[in-house]
């Protein structure tokens, strides 16, 4: 089986400080990878390097493109990388305001990616938008409302719909449940788990919430100070942590 994404020795430095160092892993189609760690451990830096939003200082990110097979996304041309960014990749931001156009209606938000890849039929675009709003449990009559009229949870779901409408194969998520209350969080996780399984998506989820990775991720990577300190199957890492920092992380979760 060919991997979907092969990351080789990614480095990113902010001046003398380490963003992330020597990160390597392989992601196979249909697999969900969790990245956990404390604030400032380099999770988001790594994710942004993988998604082409930051340029890494070293290393390769090989992605299995539809046309040409495995290709290094770091050295590919910018138009090509941006094309991937709106077709095969999706990026779900922690704050939906970063990922949505707040001045554009929900339907327009979902339709933007379709129009960016050449859809020019209003009826079709709108039909698809309504269909996707339905899949993320947003009522059809909200299609012409602006995201600013939506609650935080709805905005996050709208952001997910907007990203998945072009049928991406790899989704990057940066704290998708951050800032949501627990019941909304649970529904969102439920929805995400359903979509990931249904569409056979691969995903890389950055979070500091261990419950989220327990529910969604097949494999787990624990980061500290820019380095990966432990990797393994999610249950294995969470139930039998080997590294001192992972042990600390797991034991820090508050029990209700």
């Amino acid at each position, binding site marked *: 089986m060919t991997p979907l994404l092969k990351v080789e020795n990614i480095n990113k430095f902010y001046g003398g400080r380490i963003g992330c160092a020597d990160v390597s892993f392989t992601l196979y189609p249909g697999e969900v990878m969790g990245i956990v760690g404390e604030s400032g451990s380099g999770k988001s830096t790594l994710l942004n390097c993988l998604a082409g939003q930051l340029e890494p200082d070293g290393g390769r990110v090989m992605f299995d493109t539809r046309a040409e097979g495995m290709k290094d996304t770091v050295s590919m041309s*910018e138009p090509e990388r941006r094309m991937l960014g709106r077709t095969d990749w999706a990026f779900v931001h922690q704050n939906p305001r970063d990922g949505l156009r707040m001045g554009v209606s929900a339907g*327009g938000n979902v339709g933007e990616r379709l129009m960016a890849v050449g859809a020019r039929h209003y009826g079709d675009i709108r039909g698809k938008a309504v269909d996707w709003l339905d899949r993320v449990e947003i009522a059809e009559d909200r299609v012409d409302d602006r995201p600013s009229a939506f609650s935080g949870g709805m905005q996050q779901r709208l952001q997910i719909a907007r990203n998945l409408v072009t049928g991406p194969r790899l989704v990057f998520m940066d704290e998708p449940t951050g800032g949501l209350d627990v019941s909304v969080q649970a529904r969102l996780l439920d929805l995400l788990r359903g979509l990931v399984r249904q569409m056979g998506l691969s995903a890389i989820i950055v979070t500091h919430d261990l419950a989220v990775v327990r529910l969604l991720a097949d494999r787990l990577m624990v980061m500290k100070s820019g380095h990966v300190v432990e990797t393994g199957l999610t249950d294995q890492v969470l139930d039998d942590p080997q590294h001192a920092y992972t042990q600390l992380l797991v034991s820090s979760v508050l029990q209700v």
Partner: protein
Amino acid sequence: MTQSGQYNFAYLDEQTKRMIRRALLKGLAIPGYQVPFASREMPMPYGWGTGGVQVSAACLTPDDRLKVIDQGADDTTNAVSIRKFFQRTADVAVTEDTTDATLIQTRHRIPETELAEGQILVYQVPIPEPLRFLEPRETETRKMHSLEEYGLMHVKLYEDIARHGQIATSYAYPVKVQGRYVMDPSPIPKFDNPKMEMAAIQLFGAGREQRIYALPPYTDVVSLDFEDHPFEATKANHSCALCGASDSYLDEVITDDQGTRMYVCSDTDYCATRRAQGHVGLQGVPLEDNAA
């Protein structure tokens, strides 16, 4: 000493005109591409056509016949002041006749009379960037132009249809030039968009935003639309009250405080020419009677 003697010909110094001409040539070579230029302070406020005036100044020769229109009319403030400006500083002949003019500076209209080869049409442009209100970052819009990422332009049209049931953008309607650059045609009514595929050279100047762009003659100019909501060049569904023309763009004029209104050609030269030919609209009077 006449006032024209106190200024260099057409107000701007030769080096500045040369700089603007370079930008114009580059703009003509890459139709629809916004060329940055070092816009000068002009003796009029921004928004009054400082970009168009600079482009006109760089194009004028002593033999030119200049016509200036504002919303189609030769006799409104903006048109009169710019025409006077060039009469004083360049001492060029001026005309109101569209076919007679060699250089026409316009604000927000294209003349109804078809322009011919050898004529130059200069537009005053307030905001040259068609993506400006969708994407506020200049770095990002430039990247979108260079990578030809114009999906966002259709998001605006989508929003129009979603909110109003049709494409409600009625002026500054975005166009795609020669299959490449998306361009803001300046705030001309979309009625004028089909006329942009013309024999004359079209030059666009934005003074405050310091951009020049251009269309060479016979360039393909396609108004953006959806397959199921095609582009329509709309105008008020009347004919001109003075000259009876049904094919020209109309201004709505309120004539009293009871809501009475009349529709007249916005292109004054076109209207006057038709009336001189004997065409009379519903509220018009034949020219001879008028004079008597």
